[in-house]
């Protein structure tokens, strides 16, 4: 039996860890299928500029979805990401417009995002309210604050320097993509290598066991919401950099797209499961889908139809690929 297995278990482990996990391979396969299909159907799809385009278009959703993934893994959900983004966007933009230097305004945006997240997190972790309800409340609350603060008007006139930074590129890769890549890397390390990551996985996997083992359950939850809030702010900054304006209505429906990306990437809404790579692939699948359908000039209603069908089919393929 096992006793005859003389391979060095440690070496085997390292190798195993280099291979992306099976679940992510399933998602990757789904993505490949979509790419192959669109490439066959349209000439423009598989060109470098279009691929860059897809990445760029997916970057905002990816950013939100990464934060959402952490929340989902810990067993929660964050419906308030869009309004959180809107609130930090308008506050940071107003600050820049009245002359606050961009780096400071960026910090302000992050602080606002974190504050929204902590507010959600405290109500969930300490008051024991359900995540769905708390962040649904947040969804209204933060949106209202953004609208009231701006009177409903967009904030225009962002400094050029700020916009240039976010619209620039590094070795031909658009800044937003680079930013999201760096964040992904950091989150990957956090989730897979840091104590916090283990705590998040543990809280979502078995809260009771985590508590008994001395995991700071409440603090862990709050951190995931804070992270989600902070990443919503980053997404907001990327967006207002691109748009040149901060609108109090920005971020509508972001939560659904983000949850979809995370779920396609294998996150389970029951908690305990989810991966950074999977979520990124999920976001790209959704981005590629929209891009491909538009390239093929599919009419809006049929785009909706195709989106529905492809999401389900992709999930079926994924399921079949990795077996039961």
């Amino acid at each position, binding site marked *: 039996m096992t006793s005859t297995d003389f391979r060095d278990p440690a070496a085997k482990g390292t190798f195993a860890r280099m291979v992306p996990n099976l679940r992510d391979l399933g998602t990757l396969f789904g993505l490949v299928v979509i790419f192959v299909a669109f490439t066959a159907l349209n000439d423009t799809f598989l060109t470098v*500029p*279009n691929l860059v385009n897809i990445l760029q*278009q997916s970057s905002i959703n990816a950013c939100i979805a990464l934060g959402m993934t952490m929340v989902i893994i810990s067993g929660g959900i964050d419906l308030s990401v869009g309004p959180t983004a809107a609130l930090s966007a308008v506050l940071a933009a107003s600050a820049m417009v009245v002359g606050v230097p961009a780096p400071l305004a960026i910090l302000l945006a992050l602080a606002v995002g974190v504050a929204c997240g902590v507010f959600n997190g405290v109500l969930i972790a300490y008051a024991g309210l359900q995540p769905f309800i708390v962040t649904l409340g947040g969804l209204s609350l933060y949106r209202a604050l953004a609208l009231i603060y701006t009177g409903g008007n*967009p904030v225009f006139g962002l400094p050029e320097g700020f916009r240039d930074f976010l619209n620039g590129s590094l070795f031909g890769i658009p800044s937003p993509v680079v930013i999201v890549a760096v964040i992904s890397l950091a989150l990957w390390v956090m989730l897979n290598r840091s104590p916090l990551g283990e705590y998040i996985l543990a809280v979502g996997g078995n809260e009771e066991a985590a508590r008994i083992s001395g995991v700071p359950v409440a603090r862990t939850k709050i951190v995931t919401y804070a992270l989600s809030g902070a990443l919503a702010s980053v997404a907001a900054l990327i967006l207002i950099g691109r*748009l*040149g304006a901060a609108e109090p*209505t920005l971020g509508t429906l972001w939560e659904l797209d983000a949850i979809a990306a995370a779920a396609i990437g294998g996150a389970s809404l029951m908690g305990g499961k989810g991966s950074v790579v999977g979520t990124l692939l999920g976001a790209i699948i959704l981005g590629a889908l*929209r891009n491909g359908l538009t390239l093929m000039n599919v009419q809006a209603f049929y785009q909706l139809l195709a989106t529905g069908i492809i999401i389900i089919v992709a999930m079926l393929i994924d399921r079949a690929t990795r077996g039961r």
Partner: protein
Amino acid sequence: QELAPLNSDTEPDRIDWSELEAQFGPVPAPPEGTKIGGVSKTLTNEYWRSLGEGYQHVADQYGVEFTYQAAQSEGDQLGQLSIAETLISQGFNALLVSPQTDANLVPAVEKATEAGIPVLNVNDAVIPSAEHYVGNVQKGNGVNVAQWFIDNRPDGGKVAVIEGQAGVYAAGQRTAGFTETIEGAGNFEVVASVPADWDRQKAYDAAATILQQNPDLIGFYANNDGMALGVVEAVKAAGLQDQVVVFGTDGISDAYASIRAGDLTGTVDSFPVLTGEVAMEVALRLMADQDLPRVVATPQALITADNIETYSTDDMAALRQALMAPAQ
């Protein structure tokens, strides 16, 4: 060139659609193989489909290849941006966009401008940096309805507004136009002004509740027709159809039918098909390097049972005639 932020309702550099031909001559025929793209807000509202029809009429007339794409719902800002960007990468000669918000299409517009593709902002959110805008005066929608009350209800009374989605330009302007005008008259009171998110069901519920509180209400103004038709049902359910008038905005076919049936009192038609035609013609003019004013104002008119037959036509030439008449 540094353009001042656009306010489509007040921009002085403007021209009425009816004067285009007189000032700039007939629409110049585009070169062979011209491709034009349109990005709409959503196709789930007849208004935007009608606009597309208008685009298509003119495109067909001049042998232009036309592609019309829309986001999946009103409010899908990023989706619309992706669509616009993807379209631009396909090499169109001009782009007609109706943005979800004032800012959500800015990168696409910038990209197009960089590539030398003329971009027209067609209704209703206004991109401040837009070089060209075709559409009606949103505020005028509300003003028109307020004027009806002032003219037809000299005794004044209580009125209510059912607003569109909070924060949307068209909703804000229409409400402001109505409220400012009617309150200026002195003897009217706007007892309620609440949002129903362009949703017929929410409009029904809001109207029912408002009637609870104000059984002596004399009229509603709704920011679009879908909501107005919901309000009509609430008024009927309360048995107040003889006392309460209901106005909508847009002029979709269901609104016309309802006016004919004697349910809806009126709607401010902004003639989406015609608007689409005008916008496409403006695009062709711009491609021929005509130096048009920044804003081309398209028509709107308050439709009631009295004048419905004049405007109710699929014959665009006849409609143009009808609309030109008062303009001159």
